[in-house]
Structure formats: structure tokens, C-alpha cells
């Protein structure tokens, strides 16, 4: 928490604020592509198309 406060006091969040979202967006797109290539979206789909017994409190 102290580290975050120091970061804010130095104006860190202000500096990153204007462009931070763009950086996050690019990181997100890159990670999503990596995940897609590694077949993670298929893992998600396989889980999502079956009734999740844990989610509904049976499994």
C-alpha cells in the first residue's frame, strides 16, 4: 500500500493516466492472442457449454 501511495505522490498515476488504458489495451490484446494460440479459448468453451455442476451447487 505504501508503495502505491509513493507512486501516486510522485505523480505516477497522473503520468500513466492518459495513456495507461492504451498500454493496457495492447497488453490485453497480446495476452488474448497468446491465449488463443495456446488453445485456452477452446478450454473455456468446453467448460461453458456443459452445465457446471459446481456453479449450480450440485457438483
Amino acid at each position, binding site marked *: 500500500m505504501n508503495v502505491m*501511495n509513493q507512486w*501516486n*505522490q510522485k*505523480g505516477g*498515476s*497522473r503520468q*500513466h*493516466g*492518459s495513456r*495507461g*488504458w*492504451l*498500454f*493496457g*489495451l495492447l*497488453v*490485453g*490484446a*497480446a*495476452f*488474448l*492472442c*497468446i*491465449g*488463443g494460440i*495456446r488453445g*485456452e*479459448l*477452446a*478450454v*473455456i*468453451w468446453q*467448460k*461453458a*457449454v456443459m*452445465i*457446471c455442476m*459446481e*456453479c*449450480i*451447487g*450440485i*457438483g
Partner: protein
Amino acid sequence: MKRIRTAVQIIFTIFTNGYAYGFLRGKIYQGNLKYACVPGLNCYSCPGAVGSCPLGALQALLNRRGFQVPFAMLGFFFLFGSLFGRFICGWLCPFGLVQDLLHKIPLSRKRKRLPFHHILKYGKYVVLICLVGAGSLFLFGGFAKVPAFCKYLCPSGTLFGALPLLASNEALRDQAGGLFSWKLGILIVLLILSVKVYRPFCQYLCPLGAIYGWFNRFSLVQVHWEKERCISCGACQRACPVDLAPEEISRSAECIRCGKCAAACPEGCLHFSKKPGPNPDTKPDLKPEKRT
């Protein structure tokens, strides 16, 4: 603003849970749209759900054998978090909508926060680390890892998944036991609490809110506060459902971007913007300025 937000919440909930056939037959949608996640907490076992739940998907990736970095979900959170932050909680989450609607019931004296809020607000980080993270990695049911958050806590799964499925599917109804009762109990407590306290699940337990909250400080959608024009009347803090002061609103992980502060400000110095607010460590003058 209030009506627009409620309309957006309702439309988005219907849009992402529009598979009506599932409700009628007690089945779930199995099409290709489920390769993608919806941004809010929306159980993928809801008969109407046309997308995947981001927390369920994250746990599904963590439940794989060994430990593999869940790149797809990290990417998803960075993508949506960087654009919207907790705007998603305020405007696009179906379970948030349910709590909002319950809080409108004029039954008891309303509270913005629970007692010991300053401690309890960290509960969502505990849930994220212990149930979503460690729980999904190390908790086994038989030989398989279990999605601990979905299994033991998620009220969205009980409300949108379990209840409609159990109502329309007799085979599932016969299997419901102690675990279902536990989850139903959690759901009932949270729903009753929502009538009195504003969004108790979002404020204290939701790991998705904990994730998106971190992005609030630099997300594209911001609530910008013009400090110079502020007359320190306190109208924004009174209107804020989570009781944030204007200097905290922009970057606080608790702000769900509901826009009530902006609507309440008599000077119009709070508004949605791409521009980040001032540093939260700078406090406004407590004395109101003299107006000519």
C-alpha cells in the same frame, strides 16, 4: 442518468441472457458465442447465457493440470479493465442490476456501507486470492481441481444458473443437496442485505470487482473532477452510493462509475471523461468559496 443506467443494465442483461429456449427446456446454450466472455458476473450455466462468465473461465484455466498462466483471461481483464474499469460493475453486470433493484425497495432505512467497511472492503481481495486463485489451483474434488469460487460462494450461479435449471429440469432437482442449500443460503442473505445496504456483494465479496477496481486508476472511462470549480458542497458524496469524496472518485477501486455524483453536482464539475482526475492525495479546500 439514473434511468439511462437502469435501462442499459436491463437491456444488456437481456442481450447476454437471451437464449429463451434454454429457460423453456432447462438446457444451456452450446454455440460458438461461448468462446467469448461477457464482461460482468454472469454464470455460463444460466439457461439464457450466450457468453461465458469471466470468473468461471479464469477458474477453468486454473483448473487445468499443473500450473499454466491463464493468458486468455489475463488478456480479457486487461482489455475490458483498461477500457471500462468498474464501469462494467455499474452498468453491465446482471447481478449488480439485481442488487440495485432490490435496494430500491422502500422497506428499511438505507445504508451505504456495512459497519467495519474499512476492513470488510478487503474481503473481495481475500475471495480473489483464496477462492479464485489458490482454491482453483489447490482444491481437489476427487482427482479433479474444482472452481472453488463457483462451488462455494458465487450467488450469481445460484440465482441465474441453479434456480432456473432446477425449476425446469427434474433430473437436476433430484441431485440438489447440502451444497445447494449452502449456496442458496448465501444468495438469500445477500439478497435480503441488498435491500438495506447498497450492493453488499459488489462492495465486499466480488472478485471481479476487485480485478476491475485495479484498472479504475487508468481506465479510459473516468469520472473527471474539476477541483478548481468545486464549491465543496458535499452533494456528490451524499449522492455517491458507496460514499466516496470527490477527490477519491476518479481512482478509487470502489467507484462503480454509476454517475450519481455527476448528476448531483450543482456546478457540473464532475463528469464522465477520458481525462483522469487529479491526484487523490490533493484534498479540496474545506471552506466553500464565496460566490458573487
